[in-house]
Structure formats: structure tokens, C-alpha cells
């Protein structure tokens, strides 16, 4: 490795830390805003799982499409959806990335090829498959990263999509975020076979498990997979083993898991471990934190100052306004 590469990786590694911290601090602020009733509805936090979205995103190019789940604040942030427009969305403001019609679970930014935000478990997989089919048919060279939780593997759509993606050799990376619980149902209580990569392998798809608490491991695995997908190697599947530190949603009393288990996983928090690995000094870390806090302050101010769409606009966007194409 020459010095240039070293510098690139060094900067890249710092960017990974910054992105993980952005997501963490953004969501911590969201919790406060939820308590203050600025944010309502369902809100699902990604805290603990940041290394997954950040590591995978580091392997993608801006033209690649992303389909995510209702736990997608982190994916949206790391794909460049402005914190302002995400926060405004959660405030229900028209300045939000979905004009206040989607909320926390339905963040969209098609200009950045971020296709939501899907709140039906498994429901995003067929859409991702179709986007990948379109990329394939139009020979764009772009790929699709499709995120879903391990709960989705119990859905028929998961199996339909594994089969079709492999059968048609589509350019898609399946990113299974295995946080061990489908809401309150443990993987071991819901699956006869808990080796998730094996399920994808049974469709002849290259698949392997990755430590989802290690952002470098995720990035390296994603690079390997993305290179293969982009090179015409067909779909790939990563099982990203991770853990959510917070409740499933703001309504979840967490009766289904031990506090000790949560603490064990918190000891593997991807952020402090990686911060230590980068050997940042206190001043550098402080600067980073202050920059992120400023971005989030700005996002909250922007959302607060935003406007509620007039009720007269209620029925807009049920059908297209632009007319036929």
C-alpha cells in the first residue's frame, strides 16, 4: 500500500466515523423531539446498527439505488438526504423530503435514488428487484442495495425475490440487517433455520455473514459484494449481524429480551470501538461532535420554521399532476 492509498483510507475511515456519529446524534435528538411531541407516529431507531448502513454505503456510488425499511433514518442520512429535509419530514412539514406525507417510516429522495422507507416487512424487496431489473434492461451499470431486517426472511416475498434475482441475474445487493428480533420475536423463535446466509445460498446466491458491529468489516464485505454485482456476477447477499440498542419503536416496553443481553451488545457499540481504532485526540473528536451538533441544530431549526401544507392540498399526489409521459 502506498501513501496515497493510506491517506485515502485514513480519510475514508474518518468519514465512516463521522457518518455513524451523525446518525447516532441525529436519532438521539429525535428521541428528545419525540418526547416533546414534535415528532409523532411510529419512529424506529437505528441506534446500535449504524455500522451497517454506513459500511454498505461506502461501497456504493451516487447513481446506485437504495431501498430501505421503516428503520431508515441512517440510510437516508448516509445517502446524502439532507438532515434538514429528514427532520422536516418527521415534523410533518411540507419542506420534508416526502412533503410531510410519509413521516419517519417513509423517507424518499428520488433525486438521490433513495426509494424509501417501506413499512411492510419484506415489501421493499420486490420493488428493489424491479429497479434492478430496469437497471439490467437499460444496461446502466448501476446496482441496487436493498436493506431489510431478518424478520423479512419469514415472508414469502423474501423467497420469491431471492429466486427471481438469482434466476434473472439482477444487479442487486441484499443487505439483511439481522438484529435478532422481529419486533419482539427472536429469530430462534421464528425460524427453523437461523443461518440466514444459508437461505440465500440455497437459491445459488453468493452469501455470507458479516460482523455488523464493525464498520470496516461491513465496508470491506460490501465492496467485495458490490464489485461482484457490478461486474455482472448477479445478486449477492450479506447477513449483517447487528443489534438495536433501543426499543423496536417508541411504543415498545421491551419485555422480550434481557437487559443483560442488551448490555452485552452495547459493549460492542460500533462507534466507541471505531473511534479508539482511529486514535483521534480529544480535540479532533470534539470538533467532529460540534460540527455534527451544528448540523442537527440547523436541521431542527429548519424543521421548526417549516410550514404545514395547506389542507386544501390534501388530495394532491393521489394521481400525477404532470400529465401523461
Amino acid at each position, binding site marked *: 500500500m502506498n501513501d496515497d492509498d493510506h491517506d485515502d483510507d485514513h480519510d475514508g475511515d474518518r468519514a465512516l466515523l463521522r457518518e455513524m456519529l451523525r446518525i447516532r446524534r441525529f436519532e438521539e435528538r429525535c428521541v428528545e423531539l419525540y418526547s416533546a411531541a414534535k415528532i409523532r407516529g411510529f419512529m424506529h431507531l437505528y441506534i446500535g446498527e449504524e455500522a451497517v448502513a454506513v459500511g454498505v454505503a461506502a461501497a456504493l456510488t451516487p447513481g446506485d439505488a437504495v431501498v430501505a425499511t421503516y428503520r431508515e433514518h441512517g440510510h437516508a442520512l448516509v445517502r446524502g438526504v439532507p438532515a434538514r429535509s429528514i427532520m422536516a419530514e418527521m415534523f410533518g412539514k411540507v419542506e420534508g423530503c416526502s412533503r410531510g*406525507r410519509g413521516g419517519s417510516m417513509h423517507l424518499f429522495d*428520488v433525486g438521490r435514488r433513495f426509494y424509501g*422507507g417501506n413499512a411492510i416487512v419484506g415489501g421493499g424487496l420486490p420493488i428493489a428487484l424491479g429497479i434492478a431489473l430496469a437497471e439490467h434492461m437499460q444496461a446502466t451499470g448501476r446496482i441496487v442495495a436493498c436493506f431489510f431486517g431478518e424478520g423479512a426472511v419469514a415472508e414469502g416475498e423474501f423467497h420469491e425475490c431471492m429466486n*427471481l434475482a438469482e434466476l434473472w441475474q439482477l444487479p442487486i445487493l441484499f443487505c439483511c440487517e439481522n438484529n435478532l428480533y422481529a419486533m419482539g420475536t427472536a429469530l430462534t423463535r421464528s425460524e427453523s433455520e437461523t443461518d440466514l446466509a444459508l437461505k440465500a445460498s440455497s437459491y445459488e446466491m453468493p452469501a455470507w455473514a458479516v460482523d455488523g458491529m464493525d464498520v470496516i468489516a461491513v465496508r470491506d464485505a460490501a465492496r467485495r459484494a458490490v464489485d461482484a454485482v457490478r461486474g455482472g456476477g448477479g445478486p449477492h447477499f450479506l447477513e449483517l449481524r447487528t443489534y438495536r440498542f433501543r426499543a423496536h419503536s417508541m411504543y415498545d416496553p421491551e419485555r422480550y429480551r434481557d437487559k443483560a443481553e442488551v448490555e452485552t451488545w452495547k459493549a460492542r457499540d460500533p462507534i466507541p470501538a471505531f473511534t479508539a481504532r482511529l486514535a483521534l485526540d480529544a480535540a479532533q473528536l470534539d470538533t467532529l461532535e460540534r460540527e455534527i451538533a451544528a448540523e442537527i441544530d440547523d436541521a431542527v431549526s429548519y424543521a421548526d420554521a417549516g410550514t404545514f401544507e395547506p389542507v386544501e392540498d390534501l388530495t394532491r399526489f393521489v394521481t400525477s399532476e404532470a400529465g401523461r*409521459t
Partner: protein
Amino acid sequence: MTATAPTTLTYREACREALREALRRDDRVFLMGEDVGRYGGCFAVSLGLLEEFGPERIRDTPLSESAFVGAGIGAALAGMRPIVEIMTVNFSLLALDQIMNNAATLLHMSGGQCPVPLVIRMTTGAGRQVAAQHSHSLEGWYAHIPGLRILVPATVEDARGMLWPALEDPDPVMIFEHGGLYGTSGSIAADAGPVDITRAAVRRPGRDVSLVTYGGTLHVALEAAEQLAPAGIEAEVLDLRTLRPLDDEAIVDSVRRTHRAVVIDEGWRSGSISAEITARIVEHAFYDLDAPVARVCTAEVPMPYARHLEEAAVPTVPAAVEAAKRVCEGG
């Protein structure tokens, strides 16, 4: 340009010609579904298209309705113009989540960013003794859902002409082809092309009663009108053509002319499109009515296999005639 001599086409051939035209006109168009390719389509609608357009554009799928309907949505989002064929309306229930929660919803949920220019075609209806899991008429259910356009071609001309404007629509369109119609034929201009997909059509003018119908029961209404004429009842037959949005104006105009209405629908009566049509007549033309609105619907049973029971279940000409006479006498 000289007028082209009319030609005779079956409904099936008209559907096929519409597909062929769309595939020729627009490289973004492709057809995807179960047995659309090598088999030639379950109802032989796409016969020959694989040979002409190849397996990339005439794309056989596994029996994975949710995945391939959802894939149609995704492909539409990413620049293609997919036509997804579902073998029958009953199987569409396996894709209902994708149709309802994604196709119909994405535009609104994304604040206008995600139009879904997708066409979903399927067979609907009874009459072929294929029993309770292949015979239902659920197009009225789909007409409940904001964000979808629901088309119900009843004629060869509409089978030929509705697909292209459906593909030009930036939003999802579902086309319901009644299985009993594929073998019927009609005269059509040799150069027939796209038709308007926003309006109902008066298929037979009349002054005494409006028979409001669509799709597979249009011929029932037309035959009933023929049988009513000798009794001195001139029935107007209104072919709805689109169930969402409903052409309220055409319905109300017809009822204002005739002051009586019979809705004929192969769907069940309860919570149905026939109930919706009746409600709109009552809302918009109550004081024009000389008699209560009548309905001729399918009996509220899962469709039975035996021919005599199936015939007893679905709307028939005698039932339509009887209902029309009743509302006319009642007035």
C-alpha cells in the same frame, strides 16, 4: 388519408394487437407474467409475441405474484413501462400488498416523487365452470383504492385501444379482461388505435331505463334491452368502461334522461361497485328518479362449479329484463 375497411377481430386478438403495438412503439415496454412467453399466455393472448420480441421483453416469471408485480412497480419507478399480466383476478390477491401498499400509495407517500407508470392486466369473471378460485369479479374491490385507474374493456375496440393510453398514464392502471369475452369478435377499423379511457359510453340509446354495466355483463344488458323493446321499454345501455374514476357525469346524465336505473354487475352486491354506483345516483340524481334503483348482481356465494348453479349465480338476461320491468312498472 383514406378510411381503412373494417376488419373482424376477436377480443383476444385485439388484446394481442394492443400488446404488439405497445411493444413496437416503445422500447421501455415489456410484458411479464406467468406463462406469457413459451406457453403463449394462459388465454393465448400473448401467443407469438415471444418469437417477435424475445425473452427479455416477453418475460416468463415463476409463480411469484407478489415478487413480479412488485418488480413491475420497481421497474416502472426506474424508467421502464412494464405490463404485468396476472393470470386471473383471484391470483392478484397474492400481490394485493404490492398493488395497494406500493403501486397505489408510493406517489402520495413520497410527496409526488414516485409516480408508478405500471399497467397490470388480468382476467376476471365467471362463466367457464372453473369454480370458486378462478371465477370472481373483484375489479370493484380495486376500484375502492385511491391512486389506481381501473379499466374494464367490454368491446373489441376497447380491448384494442385501452392499453396504449394506460401505458401513457403516469400512474398505475389495472385492466380487467372478462374471460368470457376473449372468444367474442367484433368489427373494428383496420387502423383502430387508442381510445379515450376516461369516459363511459352509451352503447344503446333509450328513454325509459338506464342499464348501467361494464365488462362481461355488457352483452347481458344489450340483450336485455333487445328483449325489453317489444314490451315498449326502451332501455339505454351505459358501458362504464372505467370503474375508477367513475364517470359520474355520464351516469347522472343517463339517469336524468330515463329516470330509472338498473345496475348490472358480476360482482357481489354487498360493499360493491354496484352499491357505489347506486349511491352516486342517489346523491346526484335522487329527484330525477321515478323508481328506486335496482341491482342485478352475482349471488353472494363462492362461485360453484356445476353449470346450472353457476348460471343461477351470475347476472342473466332474464334477471336484467325482470329488474328493468319492475323499475318501469314501479314508476
